[in-house]
Structure formats: structure tokens, C-alpha cells
């Protein structure tokens, strides 16, 4: 039987893969359905690839190139996926975004130089709308690429998280943006016979992506990764229009809105406006306090004290922060929770949306340490529970528990939703020293009557508590 991939059949198959992508995201509504969702996603992309190979009857040199690229890229991807530590997920995702951005740029340039193959006109005479789509795809892709490279470097510690700012930064960015818009206009007028204009758009966009991310501080990185996630989606969608490909348009829209929603959630969790994050500079003046601060008395406790208090409690809420992951204390903490459960203590975890370095990061780190997901609660679900708990065990978190967010309108974090750990009878606060948190703000909780400070390395302290239990 002769099989022929017609345009209609191809369009239907692309739609099927678009639907499978929707189902893959839908699966993430609960951990139980999530694994099946991931499989839907894989099938969706396989259908899209095979459909394209058949429709364009890729053979000969093209087929060899394709298989070589898939083999090399696939092996690298599989290797990274297997080896990457979970603490490094933020930089991995940033790195992956940069690849999508670069791929979008490559595809846009390829289409510009071989428009006939893409069905968008002839060299030097490309349809106006297609030129607009190509330019947007290339420009957004380029911004995603260079922006993600900077985000990767900052998250991976290759570059300091301190914001890099200079005079006239915003004006420069604005002018570059206007420059891109103007060049796109010129390109569309010329019908695309001026290749230099197109390449200039790509070049300026690379520069713009770089300049957009360097002023953004380490604390705002969760927003930045989400935002770049969104950009990579819009770049894909723009090229989807060029190719008239439903799978690409649908995916672009899904990813674009997903990234935008995550950015919104992160901004809300930090009480920062999206605009102020984009404009950058946060964290620059973080270390102005010091010296003149009065020494206030704290109550200091030992591992034995902590073990005694928790063993006799009926409910303990553990509040982990990124410091937990830095100290590699996730596994020890779970062991401690197991010991307490053996003693008949009810142990649950409370997670602030920005507890990790990217949305949902802390949940992954706890899952890796074999903490069951039904013991882990989000801020709005657990906040009322602190009043019923004898102990709030804060480990590696600081700013997300700071009552100043509610009481002190002068505080930089005023208005940020916090975990109400001060409502618990006793707060056990594991901390290396009494220094201020990530945002550089002193925490009144340290000096409160119900607080006992456990000053030590998080992992060592938890191990000592386990011994004492």
C-alpha cells in the first residue's frame, strides 16, 4: 500500500501532537497523573518529528544530517538529565532555555535564506507577514538566548549575583528595542532583500537580552527564569506562524502563558512588581545595615534541648529554605522527621513559594530526600496550622518567616506573604550565624521570647538532634 503524507493529514497529526502537549501539562495537576502526562508529551514530540520527516520526505544528505544531530544532541541531553544534581535544576533550566532560543534564531535565519522551502516566498521577495513573524521569532529567540546565558552564569556562580547597573541603562535598552522595531519595518518594506538588516536585528536582540538580565540580582532569579521560559514560548509561536504549524503555535502559546503565570506567582510571593524586577537593581544596597545595630539578647539552645522539645510536642512543622539544600541537610532532616514520627509526633513541612531558587524547587529537593508529597504543604494551606503546632522548626529559611513583612512598613519586604511561624508555641531556628537573610534584613523573630536559636551548620545540627532523640 502506498502511503502519502498529504498537507491535510500532516496538519491533523500536528494538531494531535498539540493536544498531547496540552494533556502533558494537564497531567501535572497532581503527582499521581504527572508521569503519564510526561509520556503524552514524549509521544507528542515524536509524532511531530516523524510527521515532518515524512511530509518533507527527508532523505539522502538531509536524513544523515538529521540522524547525526539527533544522536549527538540526544546523547548529550540524556547524559545531562541523568547526572544533574537536583540543587542545580535552576541553572539547568536556564541553560535549556538558551538552547531553545538559539534554535529559534537558527531556524529563522535558515528560513530567511531558503524561503522557498518554507513556503514563504522567494529570496529577496518574502511575504510581509512572514518577514514580521521571522523577525519576531529571531529577535525573541536571540533575547532568550543571551538572557538565559547570563541567568545560567549567575545561578551557576560563574558570575556574581550582584546586579550590574550603569547610568542610562533603561534608556539604552529602550533605544535598542526601538531600533529592532524600526529595522523590522525597514525589512518589511524592502521585501526582505536586505540580508544585513535581518542580521542586524538578530545582533541587536542578542545585545538586548544580555543588557536586560545583567542588572537583575540573584534574589530575583526565580522571576527571571520563569520570564525567559515565557519568551522561549513566544519565539516558538512566532515561528509556528511562519511554518503554518499548529503544533508549534499551540506549544508556543502554552509555554508562553505558563512562563508568564509562573513569573506572576513568583512576583506575588516576593511582593515585587513585575516592572521593578525587569528594571533590576534589587539587592544592590542589601548590606547597608551593620555596626550601629544594638546587641539584643537571644535564647540559644543545644541539639539536646531541641530534641527534648520536639519529642514532647504533638505537632511539628518543618520550614525548609534554600539554606537546607546548600548545607545538603535534606536527607538528615527527613531522618529526623522519621524519628519524631516514631515518637508519635505529627510532622509536616511548610513551603514558601520562593523557598528555593526557582518555582517549586524546594518540593523537588524534599521529594528527592524521600519526603512524601502529602506531608508537604503550600503557604496558604498551612499558615493557619502554626497556631496549633507546638514547634516550628525553621531550617535554612529566614526572610520568608520575618514578621517585619507584616508589621514594619519601612521594611523592604513589607507586604510579602510570610509563613506565620511566630504563631507556634516554640520556634526552633537553625542558622549558621545571626547575620541577616538574603534580602539583608534583620529578623525580629531571632529575639522573640518563644524562639530558641540553634546556631550551627544545618546538617551538623540536625544530625546531632537525631543522635539526641
Amino acid at each position, binding site marked *: 500500500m502506498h502511503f502519502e503524507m498529504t498537507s491535510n493529514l500532516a496538519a491533523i497529526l500536528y494538531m494531535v501532537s498539540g493536544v498531547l502537549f496540552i494533556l502533558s501539562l494537564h497531567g501535572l495537576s497532581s503527582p499521581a497523573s504527572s508521569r503519564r502526562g510526561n509520556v503524552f508529551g514524549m509521544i507528542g514530540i515524536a509524532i511531530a518529528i516523524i510527521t515532518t520527516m515524512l511530509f*518533507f520526505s*527527508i532523505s539522502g544528505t538531509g536524513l544523515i544530517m538529521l540522524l547525526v544531530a539527533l544522536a549527538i544532541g540526544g546523547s548529550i*541531553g540524556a547524559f545531562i538529565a541523568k547526572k544533574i544534581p537536583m540543587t542545580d535544576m535552576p541553572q539547568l533550566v536556564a541553560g535549556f532555555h538558551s538552547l531553545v532560543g538559539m534554535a529559534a534564531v537558527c531556524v529563522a535565519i535558515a528560513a530567511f535564506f531558503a524561503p522557498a522551502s518554507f513556503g514563504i516566498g522567494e529570496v529577496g521577495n518574502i511575504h510581509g507577514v512572514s518577514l514580521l513573524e521571522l523577525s519576531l521569532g529571531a529577535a525573541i529567540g536571540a533575547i532568550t538566548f543571551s538572557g538565559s546565558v547570563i541567568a545560567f552564569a549567575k545561578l551557576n556562580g560563574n558570575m556574581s549575583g550582584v546586579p550590574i547597573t550603569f547610568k542610562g541603562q533603561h534608556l539604552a535598552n529602550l533605544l535598542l528595542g526601538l531600533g529592532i522595531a524600526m529595522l523590522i519595518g525597514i525589512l518589511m518594506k524592502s521585501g526582505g532583500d536586505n540580508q544585513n538588516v535581518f542580521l542586524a536585528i538578530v545582533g541587536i536582540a542578542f545585545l538586548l537580552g544580555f543588557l536586560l538580565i545583567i542588572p537583575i540580582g540573584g534574589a530575583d532569579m526565580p522571576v527571571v527564569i520563569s520570564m525567559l521560559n515565557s519568551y522561549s514560548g513566544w519565539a516558538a509561536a512566532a515561528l509556528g506562524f511562519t511554518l503554518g504549524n499548529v503544533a508549534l503555535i499551540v506549544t508556543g*502559546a*502554552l509555554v508562553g502563558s*505558563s*512562563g508568564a503565570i509562573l513569573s506572576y506567582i513568583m512576583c506575588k510571593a516576593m511582593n515585587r512588581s513585575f516592572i521593578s524586577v525587569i528594571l533590576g537593581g534589587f539587592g544592590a544596597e542589601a548590606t547597608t545595615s551593620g555596626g550601629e545595630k544594638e546587641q539584643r539578647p537571644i535564647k540559644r539552645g543545644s541539639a539536646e534541648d531541641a530534641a527534648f522539645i520536639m519529642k514532647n510536642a504533638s505537632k511539628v512543622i518543618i520550614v525548609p529554605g534554600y539554606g537546607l539544600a546548600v548545607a545538603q541537610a535534606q536527607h538528615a532532616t527527613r531522618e529526623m522527621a522519621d524519628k519524631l514520627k516514631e515518637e508519635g509526633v505529627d510532622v509536616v513541612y511548610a513551603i514558601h513559594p520562593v523557598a528555593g531558587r526557582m518555582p517549586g524547587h524546594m518540593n523537588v529537593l524534599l521529594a528527592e530526600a524521600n519526603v*512524601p508529597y502529602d506531608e508537604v504543604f503550600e503557604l496558604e494551606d498551612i499558615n493557619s496550622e502554626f497556631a496549633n503546632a507546638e514547634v516550628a522548626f525553621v531550617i535554612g529559611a529566614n526572610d520568608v518567616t520575618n514578621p517585619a513583612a507584616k508589621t514594619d512598613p519601612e521594611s523592604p519586604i513589607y507586604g510579602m506573604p510570610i509563613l506565620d511561624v511566630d504563631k507556634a508555641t516554640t520556634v526552633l531556628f537553625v542558622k549558621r550565624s545571626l547575620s541577616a537573610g538574603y534580602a539583608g534584613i534583620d529578623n525580629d523573630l531571632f529575639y522573640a521570647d518563644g524562639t530558641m536559636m540553634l546556631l550551627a551548620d544545618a546538617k551538623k545540627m540536625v544530625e546531632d538532634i537525631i543522635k539526641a532523640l
Partner: protein
Amino acid sequence: MTEMIIMAGGAGVSPVVFQLAIFVLAIFVGYFVVWAVTPALHTPLMAVTNAISSVIIVGALVAVSTAATSSSGGGSINLSSGLGFVATLLCAVNIFGGFLVTQRMLSMYKKKG
């Protein structure tokens, strides 16, 4: 009357407008689907959106196909197919890396007991 029916059927409407309709509706679908994602799975969500946005590989494959169809070179590797090769490779890293790392993360989420 027939004219009206044809218009309602979309004759004469540019394909770009249809694509735009799909795009706008998909944004709404994305909006509702993503808000339904449990916050505990936001990191896997980012990893998997990354993997599926690599469906841009279909564009890369079209570019690669120009290697075989170019009339002048008769199967030579031109600029476009070279860029297509690079884009395919980058997308492959993302597709395999993105889906596998998502699977690895999701396999860690376990219930009590």
C-alpha cells in the same frame, strides 16, 4: 444566501487569521491548564515546557531538508541546512534532556507509606 454561508465557513479569510485564532485559544487553554498545576510540580512544569517548546525542531527539520532539495547544489550542505543541523542538535539536547530530567523528578514524588 449561499454567499453568507461561504463567509461563515471562512472562505476568503487569510490562513494567518485562522492561525491567530488557534494561537489565542491555546493561550486560554494554557492559562487554565497551568493554573491547575499543583505548586509542588512547578519545577517539573518548567522542565517539561522546555522540552515541548523544542518542537521548534520541526522548523529545524525543514531547514535540514533543504540539503536534499536544493536545485543548485544537488544535495550539498548549504547555509540553511547547516543552520538546520545546528538547530536540530540543540533541540535534541532539550527534548531528551527535558523529558528525561522531568521523568527523573516525577519518579521521586511518592505518597506516604
